[in-house]
C-alpha cells in the first residue's frame, strides 16, 4: 500500500486509528495543532533527514503561510481551502527565493544564512502591520465554509479537514522519499561529490527539497491559522524554528513517523506543562541535550533500529 513496508503499513494503520480516536480522549484543538506541527516537522525533516541540511529559519515559511492564509480568508474573503493552498504557495515562493540563496552554502553557513533570512522575515512581519497586524497579529480569522458550502465552525468538521491534510501529507512525503527522486536525494546526502560525478545536478535537487519543505511549512502554517483563528508573531519567530528542529530530533531524523511523534510530545508538553512556566523551556533544552548526547536516532529512529526496519 503506497509503497510502505510492513512496519510502515502497521504504523500507518496505527496512526490512522490514533487520528480517529484522539479527539475523544484529548482536546481536539490540541490534536489539530499537533497535526499542523507534524506537517511542518515532516517538511523540515525532508531537509534534515534526506539531505542533511539543518535550517534554523523554517518558521519564516510557517509564519508566512499563516499570515497569507489568515489575511486572504479574513480580509479578501477567500474560502479556507484556498487560503491554505495560498499559504503553501507563499511558503514555496519564499522558499524558492531563499533556498536559491542558501543551498549554495554548506553546513554551518547554510544554517546561518537560513537564520539570517528568517530574521529578516521576522522583522518584516513586525513592520508590515497592515498585513500582519504587527504585535497584535491577525485576530478572529473565520474558518468559513469548505468549498463555500461545508461550514468548518465546529471543531469536528475542522478536525476532519486537518486530519485529511495531515494524512495526505504523510503519504506525500513517503512517496517523495521513496521515489527515484528520493533515491538521488539520499545519494547526495551520503556523498555529494559522488552524486555530482554521476551527473546529478546536486544544487537543483537540494533546491527542490528546500522548496518542498517550505511549501509544507506554509501549508502547516495556513492550516494552523485556520484552526486557531489567530496568527501571531511568535509563529514566525526564532523559537518556532527551534521548536520544529526539536520535534524532528526527538522523533528521529530521517524517519517517516518520527516528526509526528516529536510534534505530539513537544506540543503536549507545552500544553500540559504550561502551568510550570519556564520549566517547559528547561525541559525542552534538556531534551535537546539528551537527544544529541545519548539519543541521536530519536525515539522512532531508535525503535526502528531495534526492530531492524525503517519507520
Amino acid at each position, binding site marked *: 500500500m503506497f509503497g510502505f513496508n510492513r512496519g510502515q503499513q502497521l504504523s500507518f494503520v496505527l496512526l490512522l486509528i490514533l487520528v480517529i480516536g484522539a479527539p475523544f480522549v484529548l482536546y481536539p484543538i490540541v490534536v489539530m495543532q499537533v497535526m499542523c506541527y507534524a506537517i511542518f516537522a515532516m517538511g523540515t525533516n525532508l531537509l534534515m533527514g534526506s539531505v542533511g541540511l539543518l535550517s534554523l529559519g523554517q518558521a519564516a515559511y510557517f509564519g508566512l503561510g499563516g499570515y497569507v492564509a489568515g489575511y486572504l480568508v479574513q480580509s479578501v474573503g477567500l474560502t479556507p481551502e484556498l487560503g491554505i493552498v495560498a499559504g503553501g504557495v507563499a511558503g514555496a515562493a519564499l522558499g524558492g527565493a531563499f533556498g536559491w540563496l542558501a543551498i549554495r552554502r554548506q553546513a554551518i553557513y547554510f544554517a546561518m544564512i537560513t537564520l539570517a533570512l528568517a530574521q529578516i522575515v521576522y522583522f518584516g512581519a*513586525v*513592520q508590515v502591520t497592515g498585513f500582519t497586524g504587527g504585535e497584535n497579529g491577525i485576530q478572529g480569522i473565520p474558518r468559513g465554509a469548505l468549498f463555500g458550502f461545508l461550514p468548518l465552525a465546529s471543531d469536528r468538521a475542522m478536525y476532519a479537514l486537518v486530519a485529511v491534510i495531515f494524512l495526505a501529507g504523510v503519504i506525500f512525503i513517503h512517496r517523495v522519499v521513496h521515489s527515484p527522486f528520493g533515491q538521488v536525494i539520499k545519494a547526495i546526502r551520503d556523498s555529494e561529490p559522488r552524486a555530482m560525478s554521476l551527473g546529478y545536478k546536486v544544487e537543483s535537487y537540494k533546491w527542490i527539497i528546500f522548496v518542498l519543505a517550505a511549501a509544507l511549512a506554509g501549508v502547516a502554517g495556513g492550516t494552523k491559522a485556520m484552526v486557531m483563528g489567530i496568527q501571531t508573531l511568535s509563529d514566525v519567530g526564532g523559537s518556532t524554528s527551534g521548536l520544529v528542529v526539536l520535534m524532528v530530533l526527538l522523533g528521529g531524523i530521517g524517519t517517516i513517523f518520527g516528526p509526528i511523534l516529536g510534534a505530539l510530545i513537544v506540543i503536549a508538553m507545552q500544553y500540559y506543562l504550561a502551568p510550570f512556566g519556564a520549566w*517547559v523551556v*528547561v525541559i525542552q*533544552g534538556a531534551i535537546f541535550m539528551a537527544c*544529541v548526547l545519548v539519543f*541521536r536516532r530519536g525515539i522512532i529512529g531508535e525503535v526502528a533500529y531495534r526492530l531492524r526496519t525503517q519507520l
Partner: protein
Amino acid sequence: MVMILGKPAPLLFGQLLLGIINGSFYAMLSMGLAIIFGLLKIINFAHGAMFMVGAFVTWGLFTYLGVGFWAALICAPVIVGAFGLLLERAFIRPIYKLDILYGLLLTFGMAQVLQGLATNYFGSSGVSYDAPPALSGVLNLGFMYLPVYRGFVVIAAIIICAVTWFAVEKTKLGALLRAATENPSLVQSFGVNVPRLIALTFGGGVALAALAGVLAAPLYSVNPAMGSDLIDTVFAVVVIGGMGSIGGAILTGFGLGIIEGFTDVFYPPGSAVVVFVVMAVVLLGRPAGLFGKVA
C-alpha cells in the same frame, strides 16, 4: 543646532556612541565564539547564556557577598569560566567527533536550560545593578555628553579585544592553540596535552563571555533573556567576520555596531535587521566571511 547629513549632531553622536557600545559587546562576544569555534569546531549557541550568567554572577556576588564591581571583573569570569570547564568535560567532550551541527543543537539546548533556570529563579524582568560610584556621572566632551560608565565600557572592550588578539596571534600559547587547530595529533605528539588545551580554550572563551556580562550588568537590566537577545546578532558577526577569525570578529563587531547605530538614525525600523541583511549579502559574495580563510 549643528546639523550633519540633515540630522541634529547630538542625535547622530548619541547613536554613534550607542552603536560603538553595542559593537563593544558584539566584538567581545563574537571573539570568544570565534576562539571556541577555531579550536573546538563547536558552534557555541550557549555563549549568550554565559554572558547572561556572567551578569547574574556579578549581581549575586554583590547582593549576597558584598563583592563590588572591580572585584567582579576578576571573580565572575573565573567562576563562569570554571563552570564552562565543567560543561566542556560533561557535555561537549563526548561530541567532538560528531557532525558540527550536533554541537550547535547541544549548546542550543544548554542555552535554553540556563535561560529557563534563570527565569524560574529571577523572573523574566530580572534585577538591576548599579555602576560603581567612581564611574558614575557624565563627561562634557563639547559636542556631546558622555556618561562615564559608557566610555569606560568602550575603552575596556578595546583593551580586552586587543589583549586577547595579542595572546592568540602573537604569543607562544596562541601559536600552540593555532597549531592544535591545524593538526591536533601532531601537536599531541610534541607532548602537548591537547584535550586540556581544548578544555582551557573553551573555559577561556566562556570567561570572555562572562567578562562581557560583568561590563553589561550596570548598563542593561540583568535579565534571563539578555543573552538570547544578543546571540543571533553575535553569530551574524562571527559569520560575517569569517568563522574562527579573531581579528575579523573584533573588527566586524565594532563595525556592525556602528552600522546599526547609523541605521537607527536614518531608518529606525531597519536597525534591528541591518545586521542580517549585511550577513546575507556578505555570505553571497564571500562564502567564508570577510576575513575567513576559504575552507
